[in-house]
């Protein structure tokens, strides 16, 4: 049996790779994928704990995380398409509409 904290180490690794990806990449889609990666890392921790603690709650939660991720993907990509339509690029540097 593989001890629990192996899984946790792997998910920590994946999570920090995702963070680095989000912080450093310019392309919106790649940032998006890195967010997906981070989410999955967290799901892995959830399942690992649910298995280790013997209760299903963890997995149910993963289930919900997935639905949220799907919804997010849909809306996020729609946004990117809309953004792409009027800016010809989805480079994060141009997205500064938040500033007054």
């Amino acid at each position, binding site marked *: 049996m593989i001890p629990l904290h192996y899984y946790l180490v792997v998910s*920590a690794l994946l999570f*920090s790779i995702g*963070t680095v990806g989000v912080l450093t990449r310019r392309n919106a*889609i790649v940032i998006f994928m890195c967010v997906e990666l981070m989410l*999955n890392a967290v799901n892995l921790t959830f399942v690992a704990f649910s298995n280790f603690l013997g209760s299903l709650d963890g*997995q*149910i939660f993963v289930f919900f995380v997935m639905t949220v991720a799907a919804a997010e993907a849909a*809306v996020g990509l729609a946004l990117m*398409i809309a953004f792409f339509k009027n800016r010809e690029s989805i480079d994060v*540097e141009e997205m500064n509409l938040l500033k007054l």
Partner: protein
Amino acid sequence: METLFFFVVAAVAVISGLLVITCKNPINSALSLIMTFFCIATFYVMLNAPFMAAIQVIVYAGAIMVLIVFVIMLLNIRSEAGRRGAHTTLFGSALGIFGLIELLYFLAKGGLTGSRGGLDAKIIEQFGHTELIGRALFTQFLLPFEITSILLLVAIIGAVILAKKNI
């Protein structure tokens, strides 16, 4: 034997994760992300959660990644400068690594307690993982389940409106 298998899958997952953030072309990073998803799915199986593995593969790898690849193709994003200025990448990765160290530190500190919920591999085989999750979903977690359905509905409408040309 089993741990060896675990290490292999873990290595593949980490490497493909790194690939996602390093390669220039988004397509490559998309594919490597799919690879990571598969590794995570195998982890789920090893953690006696076969149904979750299936869901993972279907939802993530199947639906979301397809959607992403589709969007990449639609907007035919060519690989451009990729990373941002040296200054920000350095700062970003430093933050990431430092965060990792902190997480590992917490892991090392340990103290993972918690009661065993009384569920173990035998019961899963006996009743079937999917039935267990289904029962839990529709009894204990009925309300969140309904809310997520509304969430998905909202997401669909949002996506349609956003992506449509002017209505």
